[in-house]
């Protein structure tokens, strides 16, 4: 797959801090690509540089074979779904969707504006709501109008700035599934900015994990989760138990009262809390100091066991064990 969007050595310096530091990324055509990182890591700045609301201090932005970093936003064939949706409050649903279509006549003659609007409304399942004002819509409907307004212009890349964060948690999971469906149906490249690792893992074809203005790792969800290339990536995506320099995911960490004799790595621990979550029992343990090892920097670990399995209570003496093939290690 060829890259439709490329950042080449992009840096952005604001008055007081460096938001992006020599970032290079290639987004494949048709991909659902996520920028994942904590708030303030520079992911939104990257999106704004691509949209044209900011200009890079250095570096280049290429879209579909053209360099675009010097172009104003209205000359770039990318569209944005804003975090707040930014629907025009004085226009109804139809007016919002037509906004981008009504800028002169395109080269190939008059477009069927009404037809385009009808089709995109069907795609986002808002048919029949053309005459509603934004204030009369629910949060989920507003988000779909924001999507429709951008998608109707057939952008090379659709930029989504935390589009699910304004929705209530119950709705969020449902909309997440719809978003993925929509992307598959319309085939437009999505560049999705989020701080929610679960969102990124469940939606993306590729994830770029960003921390303090630099790209820590790019890969498929499985790659970044199972083979994190830095301690930051390991910690940011899901929980990680640290045993000296080895990281082990909670689901690969096992717990038992007896010391296992299967040749696995073992650490003794004391249960500090057991929380029943329905589908799993979530157990927090305090680690003892391993024989001969230095004091670990992290003294707690998390284990998940089946809800109908062995019962553990605070204060129980236990052993944690794992297979060394499940360890992740980073060079110092």
């Amino acid at each position: 797959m060829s890259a439709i969007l490329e950042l080449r050595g992009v840096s952005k310096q604001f008055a007081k801090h460096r938001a992006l530091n020599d970032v290079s990324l290639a987004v494949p055509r048709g991909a659902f690509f996520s920028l994942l990182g904590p708030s303030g890591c520079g992911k939104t700045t990257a999106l704004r540089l691509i949209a044209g609301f900011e200009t890079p201090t250095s570096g280049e932005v290429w879209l579909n074979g053209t360099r675009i970093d010097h172009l104003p936003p209205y000359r770039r064939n990318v569209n944005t779904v804003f975090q707040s949706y930014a629907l025009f409050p004085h226009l109804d649903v139809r007016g919002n969707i037509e906004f981008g279509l009504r800028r002169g006549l395109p080269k190939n003659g008059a477009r069927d504006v009404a037809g385009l609007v009808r089709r995109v409304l069907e795609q986002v399942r808002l048919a029949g709501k053309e005459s509603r004002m934004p204030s009369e819509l629910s949060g989920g409907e507003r988000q779909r109008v924001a999507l429709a307004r951008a998608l109707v212009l057939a952008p090379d890349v659709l930029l989504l700035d935390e589009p699910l964060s304004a929705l209530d948690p119950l709705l969020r999971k449902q909309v997440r599934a719809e978003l993925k469906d929509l992307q598959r149906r319309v085939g437009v490249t999505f560049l999705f900015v989020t701080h929610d690792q679960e969102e990124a893992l469940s939606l993306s074809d590729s994830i770029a994990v960003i921390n303090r203005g630099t790209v820590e790792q790019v890969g498929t969800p499985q790659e970044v989760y199972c083979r994190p290339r830095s301690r930051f990536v390991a910690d940011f995506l899901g929980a990680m138990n640290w045993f000296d320099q080895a990281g082990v995911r909670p689901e690969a960490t096992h717990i038992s009262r007896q010391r296992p004799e299967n040749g696995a790595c073992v650490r003794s621990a004391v249960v500090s809390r057991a929380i029943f979550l329905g589908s799993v029992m979530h157990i927090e343990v305090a680690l003892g100091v391993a024989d001969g090892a230095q004091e670990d920097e992290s003294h707690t670990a998390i284990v998940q066991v089946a809800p109908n399995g062995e019962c553990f209570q605070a204060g129980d003496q236990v052993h944690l064990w794992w297979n060394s093939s499940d360890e992740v290690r980073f060079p110092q």
Partner: protein
Amino acid sequence: MSVFRSATRVRSMSRIRSIFAAPAAVLMIATLIIPLVIVAAYSTLTRGAYGGVELPWTLENYQRLIDPLYGAIFVRSFWIAGVSTLLCIALGFPLALFIARAGSRKNLYLSLVVLPFWTSFLIRTYAWMFLLRDTGLINSVLQAAGVIHQPLPMLYNDGAVILGLVYGYLPFAVLPLYATLERLDKSLFEAAADLGATPGSALLRVTIPLSAPGIRAAAILVFVPCLGTYLTSDLLGGSKTILLGNLVQNQFTTARDWPFGAAISILLLAIAMVLLLAARRSGEELL
């Protein structure tokens, strides 16, 4: 029992609160309501022989307002107030937009907008006379520079009145426009650009429609006082430019026709009220 007591407390609290409003209310009744009632009463009485008013009650003063002689003054007053209002909005909108996007210097620019209020409007209007008259600063400089040989007739005409009104009431347009523009969500402008709107197109299709409440408020705040202006037209318009305000003044001074002057005042008041109510009806929150 406790519910009853707390209800009494709420009632006595609201009584205490209404005491806070009392001084202003007394002042308004004494200086606004009572004089207005007197003006309304005068407008339905007969003109006294040496000024003042006498019985009997009559509606004749209002019938005289239909006279074409006064009709021309009405038209001229509306025209001058209308042009001044349009100019105030046309000049005030870009300025308000500039201030709303000025970041940390907003407050500095806003205080510059209201700075003229620190001196008397009368003195500032005299200053315009000093600038505009035949022997004034502008004509002297232009003549000395050889640009013109005859002084330009800049004073004592409609243009001078409009200039004075626009100058005087520009802040009344800038402030409500600024209040509206400043509250607009910045991401709406980004969304417009993102959807392909050039800056000019975004201004026409997003900024101006969304600042309609501010434009309406500015229009009323400028139009109403301009319609009743007296000082500006008297000083800058000379004897040729008679407006409603000057007509009222004439009735109470030279013409000694108090009832007719009162009737014109009531009419002006009624026009202002209708405009304000119309703005209220359209959901105005700035007035």
